[in-house]
């Protein structure tokens, strides 16, 4: 009896609550002034720059931390940041940095040479007391560093074990961002949730799966930011992210799904676009199966209608890729390279020559992943194109991490082709890790398709040791020609990263590095 | 005369409050250790009210329930509990609810086939003959064989149940309230059929009922069950004419009879004893007008009286 009475009352209450909630009074308030709300694609893993790998996390980190150097606005060239200047020894193995004076971390501790040494030792020295705050998956960026010395309070010296041209560029990468040693000592493994840097914004709050809030650092050495605060909201579902943007719940949205771009054509929104150092390609198994024959690999490059993929599937959010190096590395890119044209007849011809008509291929596709654009749709479109020239393609889709677990150890015995995308900060990284003979999976590299060309190996080694940028550029450009001809991959697309801002946001621009730099952004 | 069925110290307890491991919390004695013998060719009536343990007893006799203690002998041979086929050929059971004892999804023929096939491994042709034979014995038309149980009235269904018991070719039949679900105008049809069959096939019956008049009409001897124990056993006419146990007397006086004035035969507030918490001594003590201190100390044993009646009472009613 009691139960019934109770439930009747509860029902009334619930009804009233529902009625209240349903009344259109609760129209959403606009987002507050001077607080920029950013729709992110995922929850950050941690706010420890040494521990993360995802662009998503970098977007926050770049605003909280500074590195010794940074990319010049709108380019991928380095300029001073926490280091005001540097010297490189003749042989390219000793780098000496002069540090900026008077910079403090958000926690109040001072930035100095000791802090720099702490940062790199933490990552590189297995015996460092805070090495256990890792793992540090990208520490190999600095694997050339032999040791870090404190010369004086504001001078620090890096000694490399061999000349390593990408070193400065790597320092500008988030992995090279400088964290507060005090904060690491204080929080230990929890540092990733209690970050402290020297950047334009201070970490304020992290509400699990709701928001990461950073607030303006009034004492920023490069001038206090315009915004009071930035809120990063993880919204994994692209559709929900779009809906939030349309409903006014966020001010800035990155990685707009191509199909949704048309929604943001009006006055109220600004669509930003920026080509970056990204290449989307198909790894072809050059060790066995039909793709062992270079003609079949070239045929695949001819058969796939990249124009259609880039313009239709990706709605123009990418450009057709010509070779292994993205054009964003302007100085290293070979302008004379022309992409493989869409020529199914040529493809059929080549297949006939190679006797590979009707071959059956296994194609690894991922469901999504960092920089993978729209991998299922693209994979399906590619499958259809290859089908059209007489290749039977069976798709197997995998979740991203599983996918990496399948692809990185090599395709041998499993698949003929796999999707892959890389975003790098230096023209060296991708070819060095994924095209050299010494980078076959069994030797710890990412050359999952077993491509091997001694000439390419030689060019890459030489480029890495060269300290002169013009010389490096020449070597890379030569490499690109050879690789394009050898077609170890199908070169598909270079992503033009996009973002949408509402009309209240000003002074926002995307960077070729794909980082999100918000210190100059204004919100009205 | 030979003893067709002999029970020695047969009892059954049910656990109450089962646990996943370990012994149960308590045991309920549904049937106290009891010993009975049924002679070949006789009908032993077992009378008792609900909860007296008569159905539990019956189910033990046909092997549907394993006894907690005691033995069952048929024609001098102890029964092996393990093999239902062996059991089934010796002793059969007629259920109280004729409809629910027939599988609603089988034809009567399939139901009749089962004992012939599984107990006697009879080939199909012989089975058909045998079924025809049995059906004519129970006055059922052969066309019924291909119908389903729900198409029959209670009386017809009970005949089918009897026919199935006969098919097993057992000499002993346990009849568990075979007519209590039937209307009075039909019950006689079934009872008379049972009498015929007994005559024809030389069967031995154990006839269980709560209805004294019915038991009297069919039994040679009768056993009265109260709270899991036999309180009185003896020739039917003797037991009903001169009940010795006060409970038997109460039963006999309670049945409404045309012409007898309506009186409450006992105090109106009595209740049956609680099986979970059985009283010490005679279970009937609380309802009994003759109860003495002796009745409260120890349960009386079944003891023989002059006229072949045995009764478990310290103060049997004298004639």
């Amino acid at each position, binding site marked *: *009896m009691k*139960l*019934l009475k109770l*439930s009747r009352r*509860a*029902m009334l209450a*619930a009804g009233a609550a*529902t009625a209240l*909630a*349903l009344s259109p009074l*609760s*129209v*959403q*308030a606009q*987002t*507050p002034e001077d*607080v920029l*709300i950013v729709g992110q694609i995922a*929850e950050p*893993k*941690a706010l420890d720059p040494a521990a993360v*790998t*995802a662009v998503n996390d970098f977007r926050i980190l770049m605003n909280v931390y500074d590195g010794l150097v940074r990319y010049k606005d709108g380019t991928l060239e380095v300029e001073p940041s926490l280091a005001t200047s540097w010297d490189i020894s003749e042989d390219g193995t000793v780098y000496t940095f002069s540090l900026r004076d008077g910079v403090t971390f958000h926690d109040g501790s001072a930035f100095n040479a000791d802090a720099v040494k702490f940062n790199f030792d933490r990552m590189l020295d297995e015996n460092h007391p805070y090495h256990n705050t890792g*793992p540090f*998956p*990208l520490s*190999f960026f600095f694997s050339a560093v032999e040791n870090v010395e404190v010369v004086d309070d504001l001078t620090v010296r890096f000694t490399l074990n061999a000349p390593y041209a990408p070193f400065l560029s790597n320092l500008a990468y988030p992995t090279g961002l400088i964290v507060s040693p005090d904060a690491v000592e204080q929080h230990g*493994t929890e540092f*990733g*949730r209690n970050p402290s840097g020297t950047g334009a914004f201070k970490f304020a709050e992290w*509400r*699990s*799966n*709701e*928001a990461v809030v950073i607030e303006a650092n009034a004492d920023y050495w490069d001038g206090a930011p315009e915004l009071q605060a930035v809120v990063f*909201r993880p*919204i*994994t*579902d692209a*559709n*929900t992210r779009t*809906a*939030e943007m*349309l*409903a006014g*719940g966020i001010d800035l949205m990155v990685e707009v799904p191509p199909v949704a771009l048309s929604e943001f054509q009006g006055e109220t929104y600004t669509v930003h676009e920026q080509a970056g150092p990204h290449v989307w390609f198909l790894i072809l198994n050059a060790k066995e199966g039909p793709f062992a024959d270079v003609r079949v690999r070239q045929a695949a490059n001819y058969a796939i209608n990249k124009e259609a993929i880039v313009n239709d599937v990706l709605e123009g959010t990418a450009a057709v890729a010509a070779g292994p190096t993205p054009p964003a590395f302007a100085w290293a890119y070979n302008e004379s390279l022309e992409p493989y044209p869409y020529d199914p007849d040529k493809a059929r011809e080549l297949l006939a020559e190679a006797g590979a008509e009707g071959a059956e291929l296994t194609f690894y596709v991922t469901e999504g992943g*960092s920089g993978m654009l729209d991998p299922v749709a693209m994979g399906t479109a590619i499958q259809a194109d290859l089908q059209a020239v007489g290749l039977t393609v069976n798709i197997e889709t995998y*979740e*991203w*991490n*599983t996918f*990496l*677990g399948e692809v*990185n150890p090599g395709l041998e015995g499993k698949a003929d082709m796999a999707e892959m995308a*890389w975003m790098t900060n230096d023209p060296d990284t991708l070819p060095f*890790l994924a095209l050299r003979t010494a980078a076959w999976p*069994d030797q*710890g590299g*990412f050359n999952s398709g077993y491509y091997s060309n001694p000439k390419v190996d030689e060019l890459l080694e030489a480029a890495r040791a060269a300290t002169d940028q013009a010389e490096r550029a020449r070597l890379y450009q030569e490499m690109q020609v050879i690789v394009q001809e050898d077609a170890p991959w199908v070169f598909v697309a270079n992503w033009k990263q996009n973002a949408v801002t509402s009309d209240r946001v000003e002074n926002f621009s995307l960077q070729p590095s794909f980082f999100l730099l918000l210190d100059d952004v204004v919100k009205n | 005369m030979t003893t067709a069925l002999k029970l020695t110290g047969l009892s059954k307890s049910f656990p109450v*409050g089962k646990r996943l491991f370990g012994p149960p919390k308590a045991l309920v004695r549904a049937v106290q250790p009891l010993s009975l013998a049924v002679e070949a060719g006789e009908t032993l009536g077992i009378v008792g009210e609900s909860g007296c343990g008569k159905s539990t007893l019956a189910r033990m006799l046909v092997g549907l329930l394993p006894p907690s203690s005691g033995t069952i002998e048929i024609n001098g041979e102890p029964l092996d509990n393990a093999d239902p086929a062996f059991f089934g050929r010796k002793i059969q059971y007629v259920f109280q609810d004729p409809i629910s004892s027939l599988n609603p999804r089988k034809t009567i023929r399939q139901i009749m086939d089962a004992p012939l096939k599984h107990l006697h491994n009879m080939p199909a042709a012989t089975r058909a003959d045998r079924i025809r034979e049995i059906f004519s014995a129970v006055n059922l038309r052969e066309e019924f064989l291909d119908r389903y149980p729900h198409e029959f009235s209670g009386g017809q269904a009970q005949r089918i149940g009897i026919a199935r018991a006969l098919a097993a070719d057992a000499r002993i039949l346990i009849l568990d309230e075979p007519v209590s679900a039937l209307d009075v105008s039909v019950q006689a049809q079934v009872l008379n059929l049972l009498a015929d069959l007994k005559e024809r096939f030389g069967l031995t019956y154990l006839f269980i009922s709560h209805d004294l008049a019915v038991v009297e009409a069919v039994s040679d001897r009768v056993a009265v069950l109260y709270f899991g124990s036999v309180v009185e056993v003896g020739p039917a006419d003797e037991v009903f004419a001169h009940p010795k146990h006060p409970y038997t007397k109460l039963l006999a006086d309670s049945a409404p009879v045309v012409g007898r004035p309506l009186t409450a035969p006992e105090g109106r507030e009595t209740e049956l004893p609680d099986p979970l918490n059985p009283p010490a001594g005679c279970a009937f003590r609380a309802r009994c007008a003759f109860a003495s201190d002796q009745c409260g100390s120890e349960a009386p044993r079944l003891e023989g009286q002059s006229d072949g009646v045995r009764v478990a009472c310290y103060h049997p009613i004298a004639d």
Partner: protein
Amino acid sequence: MTGYILKRLASAIPVLFGISIIVFVIMALIPGDPATAILGSYATPENVEKLNRDLGLDKPMVQRYFIWLGNMLQGDFGRSFSLNRAVLDEVLDRFGATLILAGTAFVLCSLLGIAAGVVSAARQYGLADKAITFAVLLGISIPSFFLGMMMILIFAVKLRWFPVSGMWPIYGARDLSALISHLTLPALALAVVATGVIARLSRSAMLEVLRQDFIRTARAKGVHERSVIWRHALRAAMVSIIPVLGVQAGFVLSGAVYIEMVFQWPGVGRMLVDAILKRDILLVQGGVVFVAACYVMFNIAVDVAQSLLDPRIKT
């Protein structure tokens, strides 16, 4: 009653133990390993192997299980690598959100479902019955994620009555009205299917009960029909409805996974899906054991409620 509750709690122990084994074994069977996931695109087989060793994943399964179990019994659920956080902290953070969402949906579907079922049964074959039956059918036939997507499109994007996603406003007061406005759409989307199931069940349970003799007795006593339906019949019907509520609670909890994804609700269901996909083994194991334990406790509560309602159940 206390004894009964203790007994039921004790009987939950082997169930929880079994659950921990099942989840451990399934996670062990899932291909792909945390090391690959931690190292991201730059995972080389060599690094993977080293990291697995560091994480203690090279030990035999049985040993790993007992280490994990032992730690868990001491309250240490391990550390999630994908979130770089203690599993228990994260689970507790997230579970509250799921509880609010699933709890509201559960209350909603129980009340609406039972009320609809009772009305439907009381007006059997009437207009109300037909309308409810149809609505209920529609409800149980629509994929909840699809419904959620449509709701966002209509009520949040087009009409702007409700926020699109999240549980709290990003800035501004985190008060009840803010919660209600964030909660309404996801809770409704989540409740729809279960409401349908409960309504159907309540209807048939009521029809079953209404044919019972004691209903005739109540009518013969001259009890008002309203009281016959809502007091006599519903109470008796609750005996068969309550266990279904228990099962439906599980479905609501499961359905919350989709709804949390669509509405970006910071709940534990979405966390677990992400964790499974990321092979964040400790997070999955800890989270699932926690959720399952809560569900088992909830079911014990259901049993207790049942025993309070039905005096025939031996306690």
